[in-house]
């Protein structure tokens, strides 16, 4: 138990000034701007938006700057800011099938309508440090980017064509009732898939990546293919009460991953592919892939699979995936626990004294 302490105002104030100084770094070096972070460290901003569960690139950039680049701290800052704003609306479900494609690949199908579009990917780079980037002031990025004669063709979702043969599970019938929201009602187990996806969407990338990796290594039998990964922009629509029809309020970047997994079937289900789903703000490919693998592992009960591995344990996965909660609870151990510790010291001393007197009595 934590017992409050007081005092230390002067030291705390000095510590905060030191923090500001450390944040600024060498004063002879130009200060980093939010536009630079948004534009040049955009994947950091995307991760912060995703795990803070608040889509706002400029605020994510501000949080990254304030947190000295500590992304988990930045996520905490942005999550805290989120609580100061009222909820004005809930969107219509976004249509990722009409995404304006920035990247779209399938590891399962070579030839697919719309084609494989690599986009700005790290894939197929050699992962050698590029010292040209160390020399600043080079040509503006994208100046020499080639253009194809035509824009990217419409890209229907891959699961759609497997569905035509019945080889992949169709979407389940829409769940009745209001869409569950973990920001309004605490997580309750067992959680339905909608709730799990909301929790995973804001879950820590590193944690989900490790769990996803564990499923590939045999902790939950899972043989996945990246059926489709797509990144790009989708329109966001709401239905305002005063208008009564849907209107577009802007567009956001999303990354979507559909994993398809072998499923041998059972007495009342034919053998077919099943699906795991990942969706994340911005360009978060690794996150959305990990999310899709974990989503599929968490469907063990629904698909009649034995639950043997951590990634299949809903409560274990969901209760620990939020890095704001996790880092808060781990880091609270730094706060003064003097009263607590004093009482435990007393207990240890008493146990030892009792043991010593018992020994003496025995001798």
């Amino acid at each position, binding site marked *: 138990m934590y017992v409050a302490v007081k005092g230390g105002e002067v030291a705390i104030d000095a510590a905060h000034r030191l923090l500001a100084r450390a944040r600024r770094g060498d004063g002879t070096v130009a200060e980093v701007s939010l536009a630079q972070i948004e534009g040049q460290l955009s994947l950091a901003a995307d991760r912060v*938006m*995703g795990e803070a*569960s*608040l*889509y*706002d690139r*400029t*605020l994510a950039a501000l949080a990254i700057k304030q947190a000295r680049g500590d992304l988990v701290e930045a996520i905490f800052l942005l999550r805290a800011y*989120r609580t100061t*704003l*009222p909820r*004005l609306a*809930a*969107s219509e*479900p*976004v249509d*990722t*099938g009409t995404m*304006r494609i920035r*990247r779209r690949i399938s590891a399962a199908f*070579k030839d697919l309508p719309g*084609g*494989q*579009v*690599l*986009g700005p990917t790290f894939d197929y780079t050699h992962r050698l440090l590029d010292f040209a980037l160390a020399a600043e002031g080079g040509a503006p990025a*994208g100046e020499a*980017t080639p*253009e*194809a*004669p*035509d*824009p990217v063709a419409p890209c229907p979702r891959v*699961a*759609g064509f497997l569905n035509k043969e019945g080889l992949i599970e169709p*979407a*389940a019938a*829409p769940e009745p009732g209001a*869409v*569950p*929201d973990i*920001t309004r009602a605490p997580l309750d187990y067992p959680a339905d*898939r*909608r709730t799990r*996806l*909301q929790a995973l*969407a804001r879950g820590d990338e590193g944690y989900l990546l490790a769990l996803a990796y564990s499923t590939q290594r045999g902790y939950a039998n899972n043989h996945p293919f990246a059926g489709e990964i797509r990144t790009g922009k989708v329109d966001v629509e709401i239905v*305002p009460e005063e208008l009564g*029809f*849907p*209107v*577009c*309020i*802007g*567009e956001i970047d*999303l990354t979507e991953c*559909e994993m398809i997994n072998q499923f041998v079937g059972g007495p009342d289900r034919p053998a077919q592919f099943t*699906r795991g*789903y990942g969706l994340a*703000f911005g360009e978060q490919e690794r996150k959305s892939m990990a999310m899709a693998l974990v989503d599929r592992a968490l469907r063990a009960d629904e698909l009649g699979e034995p639950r043997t591995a951590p990634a299949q344990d809903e409560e274990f996965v969901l209760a620990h995936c939020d890095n704001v909660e996790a880092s808060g609870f781990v880091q609270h151990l730094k706060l003064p626990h003097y009263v607590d510790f004093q009482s435990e010291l007393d207990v240890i001393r008493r146990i030892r004294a009792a043991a010593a007197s018992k020994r003496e009595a025995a001798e």
Partner: protein
Amino acid sequence: MSRQDDDSPKARQAWIRVLAKAAPAELAAEWAALPSRPAYSFLRRPETGLAMIRGRIGGDGSAFNLGEASATRAAIRLDGTETMGFGFVLGRDARHAELAAAFDALLQTGAAAAHAAVARLDNARRAREAAESRRIAASKVDFFAMTRE
């Protein structure tokens, strides 16, 4: 955008989309360039809050809550009329929401200059999107499976 469609939701949906997607600076420039700018009063002053973004399981299943986005709304009425304008845009730019609402009202009155402004904003955005999409399309790839011997 034909004039007789001005009252149908479809035409209004189309211009609301253009206004919401316009860069705030572009929108402000178009407003400033109008030959006459009507006076209006706020029905709702610009207010920033959150819109919960929803996705669908598998892209085609049940809706779920993905996460929130910052959003700003405003509503105005053209002075001396009953024409109301609606503004609701992603982000925290109060002026963007206000001008979207002002344009929405003006467009409902059939003001030709406002319709021309929306057409310009729409064309500019489409051109930018098409150019970006052509750059993306240059990375389209054909993989050849090697034949096993």
